[in-house]
């Protein structure tokens, strides 16, 4: 008895009135469920646009239809589509494209979606790190908290992907301000 750590007791689980026992999904904005199949189809169409050299249209198309309602796999497919488009656009074209998108109808929301993908892309580390190391390693077990989760460009190409995302991030903040960073963090509709 004396060994029991009361601080670890989850008192909210014992209270029927508590929000712990309440499905929070009803409070969040409604999102349409999207099947992985649909995400794949969309991704195919967007890649076609990209191969045709219409990077701006491809980017807009990808960001206007984020699969908020898809499962983890669908979301990852769309993320890789977006990252691929971002990497295909030259640095000098970033600002003009972003400006055109921001000024168009509903452009502010498209920019917010882009910000979400930039952060998600950065959170994934290099392409290799996303699948292998880090995901299941908890900080308590290893002690190497930082080194476990990220691959500081260790995977070939990871560093380069990160630098593309960072320059997009810089250009995007110049246009849509810190507000879009806050929205990427506070939005319940995750990408």
């Amino acid at each position: 008895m004396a060994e029991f750590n009361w601080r670890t007791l989850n008192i909210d689980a014992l209270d029927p009135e508590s929000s712990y026992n309440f499905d929070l999904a009803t409070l969040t904005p409604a999102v349409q469920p999207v099947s992985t199949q649909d995400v794949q189809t969309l991704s195919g169409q967007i890649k076609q646009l990209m191969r045709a050299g219409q990077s701006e249209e491809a980017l807009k198309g990808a960001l206007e239809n984020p699969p908020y309602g898809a499962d983890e796999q669908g979301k990852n497919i769309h993320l890789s589509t977006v990252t691929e488009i971002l990497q295909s656009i030259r640095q000098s074209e970033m600002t003009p494209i972003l400006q055109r998108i921001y000024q168009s109808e509903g452009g502010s929301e498209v920019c917010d979606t882009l910000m979400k993908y930039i952060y998600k892309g950065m959170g994934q580390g290099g392409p290799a790190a996303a699948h292998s190391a880090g995901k299941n390693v908890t900080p308590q077990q290893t002690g190497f908290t930082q080194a476990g989760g990220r691959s500081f460009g260790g995977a070939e190409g990871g560093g380069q992907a990160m630098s593309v995302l960072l320059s997009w991030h810089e250009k995007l903040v110049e246009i849509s301000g810190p507000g879009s960073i806050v929205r990427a963090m506070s939005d319940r509709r995750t990408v």
Partner: protein
Amino acid sequence: MASPEVHHLFHAPIADHSFSADRNTLAVTRANNVELYGKQGSQFRLQDELRGHDKLVTGVDIAPQSGRIVTCSQDRNAYVWEPSSTGEWKPTLVLLRINRAATCVRWCPNESKFAVGSGARIIAICYFEEENDWWVSKHLKKPLRSTVTSVTWHPNSVLLAAGSTDGHARVFSSFIKGADARPEPSAWGERLPFNTVCGEYLNGSAGWVHSVAFSPSGNALAFAAHDSSLTVVYPSAPEQPPSAVISISTQQLPFADLLWISESEIVCAGYDCEAFRFSGNEGGWQLTGSVEKANGGGKQGGQEHEESARNMFRAMDLRGRTGGNENTKLPTVHQNSINKIRAYAEAGGQVQKVSTAGVDGRVVVWNL
């Protein structure tokens, strides 16, 4: 335009502030106490202290007509303070019956009731019971799912709006039988028994709501959320969807508080340490500019700028990074985020001066 009146009271955050009706007394929260400042010339001097809470005080409100002060705190209590015959302030405990911190408190316009928001997903509507000679409360519970961050009253003293960390702004009826006169029917509702939910609004990204406010007529509701947005709702008729919901996402950091200065203008302030003006109507709203700039802000421009080039190179040389003074001093008057914004002076239904208080311990009065 005249520059703003800056009162740097102390080096501690101000969670809430309130001026008396004659604007000669200023009540500010400071840790576990509320300090009362009296105006002497152009300055505010500490006059009295309201001691009684034993945790952080989160809200203070002075009733304009009766002069009574209500305070609420994280110790889960609220007190109503009244001046006694000896000139001291006498507290009366309010029975809130909440099991989490109280977060905000506001008198209703006719001063017969006040509302206390809390972390227990409850809003306590408090009123005075003559026969027992104390303040009792009734709870608004449903459908609150999280901490209440702000409460605000409709001009009819029955409708109450509340913002919550579950991302919703809601309009409730707080009609107390025997204490309230039956309100006129409005776009929000016709029959209004206690805890009627007259409206429940969510913005697109469901960021938690920092602040809510009714327009001066009470026919529109605005709320600011943590996704840097401002949303204005125009109700159409009872039980009908609103006729317009306008949500604008800004480039700024989130707004912690907002204030209607007329039927078509709002001032917002928050984590950007300065106040911004918005104007609009049912057709749309937009940000029109910074209050700071209109007040001749950025006054330390010239001289300091000239110096800063030299400082910059010296700092680069000495410490290997740019920036000297400007790294520690913000160009705004407030040096930290603004927590609350209040009307200070109005004329003809238009607010002409507002006061802001923030984490930097300053209370600033702005001309609009």
